[in-house]
């Protein structure tokens, strides 16, 4: 478990702020104890200080993971958010997209969100904004990046992409071995 370098911390926070904006602060500044980000094998883990201290007793070679995996750094040093971070991101999301029940499965199979599947969208969502995708019953099912702003959505044709797929909870099954 390594402390993230300043460069990587910046990349991580920039990515997180794309989804939850100012609320990134709330991830660090928590009333229920100190939480921090640690890196192991290019994966970034969100872990409480108390748990981290317990994890340090384990031989680093034998430690697979500790805390919640937020994502990983690619070989080109970009941060990629994993679906495991959804539980922490979803409550703070400032921009949301709700998909219709008929389009839920399509999204969970890794497809983009089409206009036809769009149920609801947060008012004045800009273009290329990180969003959390919800079902109509308000269950978060993944992340996406909008390809159109809310205003543009109105005029889009039914088969146009509204949000690009980033991660979905179907990955828990589809890419079980690479998630962690």
């Amino acid at each position, binding site marked *: 478990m390594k402390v993230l370098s300043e460069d990587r911390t910046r990349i991580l926070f920039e990515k997180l702020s794309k989804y939850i904006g100012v609320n990134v602060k709330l991830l660090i500044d928590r009333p229920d104890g*100190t939480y921090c980000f640690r890196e192991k094998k290019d994966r970034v883990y969100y872990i409480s200080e108390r748990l981290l201290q317990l994890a340090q007793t384990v031989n680093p070679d034998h430690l697979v993971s500790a805390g919640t995996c937020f994502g990983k750094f690619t070989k080109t040093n970009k941060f990629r958010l994993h679906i495991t971070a959804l539980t922490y991101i979803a409550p703070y999301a400032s921009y949301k997209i709700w998909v219709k029940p008929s389009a839920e499965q399509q999204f969970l199979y890794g497809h983009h969100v089409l206009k036809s599947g769009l149920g609801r969208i947060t008012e004045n969502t800009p273009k290329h904004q990180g969003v959390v995708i919800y079902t109509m019953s308000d269950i978060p099912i993944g992340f996406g990046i909008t390809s159109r702003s809310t205003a543009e959505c109105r005029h889009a044709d039914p088969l146009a992409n509204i949000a690009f797929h980033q991660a979905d909870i179907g990955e828990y099954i589809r890419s079980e071995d690479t998630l962690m």
Partner: protein
Amino acid sequence: MDIVNEILEREQKKAEKYKPITVEKHLDVEFDVGTLLASDTNDLDLKVLQSDNERDKYLEALTRDNTQLLLNKVWELPTERIDEAIVVRLPVPKTLLPRSKPVPKPKPLTKWQEFAKAKGITKKKKDKAQWDEQLQKWVPLFGFKKAAAEKEKNWLIEVPQNVDPMTDMYEKKASEKSEKVAKNELQRLKNIARARKVKIPRVGLPVTADKANAAQLATAAVVAKASTASLGKFQDKLPKEKEARGKGIHELIPGKERKRKAPIPTPQQEKQNNLNLIDKILNKRPKIDMEKAVAKHIHTEQIQRSEEKKNAKPIKGKRKAKGGNVTNFTAKKPKAGKGQRNPNKKATGRKRR
């Protein structure tokens, strides 16, 4: 009788002078006659040892007894007589004596040996001589006979098509060979330096005879960039510049090896650092998003216009009263057939037939 007594007395005195050769011991003394070693495992008399005047006597007596026992053992061995002296051949010693010098360390492995060990490569025994098909004779692996055979074989060397026809192939071959020898020598010296843990100065990039490859050029660029007084900190960067990567490149770049890891911050410190960093990111002046700005501008314009329209409606009558031919200039093309026709109102736009 007097004489007998006298003799007996004398004998007794004599006997008192010499102690008996038999010694009584609680536990048997262990012997290693080969090294003339006797080890007595019996307890010492502590009381006597602590008293000052009797200690020496006691130790002397003990030593004598044990020596006596050892000599008894020696006498048990078969004796020989060499030049008037009685001699015993001692058996092979049983006791292992520790060596006086430290155990020699194993020779440090060369780089190749290390590699071979890791890969499990074992040396294959080669024959000393090989059958040469061309010469139809056995040629040794090395030595003057091998050199002579090579000379005999290579009486003519073809110049390949991709090589300048005027090159001396013999010279080329000789230079290749001498280069190989030099390389081997360098590696030998490197091995010695590594074994003695001597730091070898950097040699930099290898000088290549022909064109350097992309990796070498990239490395050279990175090294050159870092070769300033500030270790390249203030050098400009190209938009998509990549650091040269690979084995041994890191060592070539000045200032890289000195980099130390920052100490792990305390939780509070780390939290503060992170919060500062987040603030910095969030307070970044946003880039002007042209598309967004234009969309916003159009949006506000539209709202303004629609409000104007709403406000304009009640005034409509007044305007009419004025009799002016006031038209609302909107971006939209005027359309006909909307609502009731007003015969009083003059139709706007082009006259259509």
